């Protein structure tokens, strides 16, 4: 069961603003989804081994600098730029 409280908590973490209607609807929908997932827990898996084995070998990158992007280009999407920095509203709580 997902309560409206849980929805509000997660919304807060994700910096989402929800209306009371949305909160109510998401609580119901998320509960249904979780219920569906719960059904998987009823499967009898005693005879199968569920191991985390990659099907393909991991792709690695060698430790070489192979590119150099144009900073101005990269900064061009930001709403506010200052002297090569991204400019953002100050966070008062410096925690984390």
């Amino acid at each position, binding site marked *: 069961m997902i309560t409206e409280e849980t929805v509000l908590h997660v919304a807060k*973490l994700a910096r989402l603003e929800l209306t009371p209607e949305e909160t109510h609807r998401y609580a119901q929908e998320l509960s249904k989804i979780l219920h569906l997932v719960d059904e998987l827990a009823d499967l009898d898996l005693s005879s199968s081994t569920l191991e985390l084995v*990659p099907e*393909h070998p991991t792709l690695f990158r060698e430790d*070489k600098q192979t590119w150099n992007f144009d900073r101005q280009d990269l900064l061009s999407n930001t709403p506010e730029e200052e002297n090569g920095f991204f400019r953002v509203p100050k966070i008062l709580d410096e925690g*984390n």
Partner: protein
Amino acid sequence: MAGALTTQTQYETVIGLEVHVQLKTQTKLFCACSTQFGVEQNQNTCPICLGMPGVLPVLNRQAVEYGILAGLALNCGIALITKFDRKQYFYPDLPKGYQISQYDLPVCHDGYLEIMGQKIRILRAHLEEDAGKLVHAGAAGLAGSTHSLVDLNRAGVPLLEIVSQPDMRSSEQARLYAETLRNIVRYLGVCDGNLEEGSMRVEANVSIRPLGSETYGTKTELKNMNSFRSIQKAIDYEVARQTELIDSGERVIQESRLWNEATGTTASMRSKEEAHDYRYFPDPDLRPLEISPEWVERIRQAMPELPLQRLNRLQEEFGLSEYDASVLVELKELGDFFDEAVEHTSHYKALTNWLMGDITAYLKNNHKNLEDTRLTPKNLALMVQMVDSNQISSAIAKKILPDLIETGTAPDMLVKEKGLIQNSDESQIQQICQQVIVENAEEVAAFRSGKEKLFGFFVGQVMKASRGTANPEVVNRLMRELLKG
């Protein structure tokens, strides 16, 4: 209670450390941006480390290899299968809104370090990407400043987070653990281990409990210690603070606290509780990583000498005292220098004395590192040889040392250039001695009437007159004969 003792409760300190070491790769953990320090803001960025939509991270093999190497040196087991997870939180230094880290399958697990004769267990060591840096423009920290500036050069730089069990019982032990760890990663060449510059960051989980208690007290997490000394000081302060709280019937609140070096205190960061709900889940952009035992074995085979091994070798092979050996181990560059110098001389003790004494003092006074100078192991060894074979006195050696350090000129050349070759010619020295006696008749009379302490004065005068080149042994002998009268 029996006796109704009024003595205060005895507490035991419980400390666990979380240490982030920045891995010395050329490029970031998941993109080919340079990790070079000190370039212009946002110079080392790309669409991947800026978190632009549609990009894919690709794992840096070297970072994994460094992680495994460090894990092996910390006596850890290496996972056969490891994976990367997303740790979600919002902060302007984290462009993606999540940090790629490792949650339940870290690359290294269950190791230990021995500190003060006690095994400190290491729970895990995992790979993760660093965040960016916030710069507060202009009026830093003032209420009027409404904006921060973000530099993402550091975002995506590989870190290894090494988490200990709460096995340490004193601030000193915690400092030693951190120092030992620093030495190990430096010997391995996987990290600079510089607390001040932030290439190594130490956070301490500290709690206290009544002596003999099995359960842990409420812990606080200390951050912002920029030196090994401040790790110890911050823990001492925090233990005193917690003791006072508990003794006065109050409770310790679980929180992060910032160490303030200037005031010597810790202060609450008052971060919101929700911030710790990171909602980890496996990063779908990165496949689980299989680590073959063969790969681990290859890394193990190539492992360089570790501090503890060097400590033992220096004592066994060169007969150094434990103290001397520990000084050469503590400062890796001194130890490396010693190892090269012994190729050219077998006067190990003299070599050690120069390195630990005059050379260390010179570097300290001139705010230099050994590697910033032109002093070569061979030149120092040659100088030691020249002193041993009486070509120069140790006073002369001290005299030419600054030039030896600064110019890189060979010691025999320096001595020739400056006309400082040791003079053992008895007739020449005798002449100088006689002159000193003539010029200091009063002192001679005083000496002869029993003021024997003056002997050093005469020798000094002769050395001065010869610009330090007279062989002190010869001076001593001749002067004594002449003063007998």
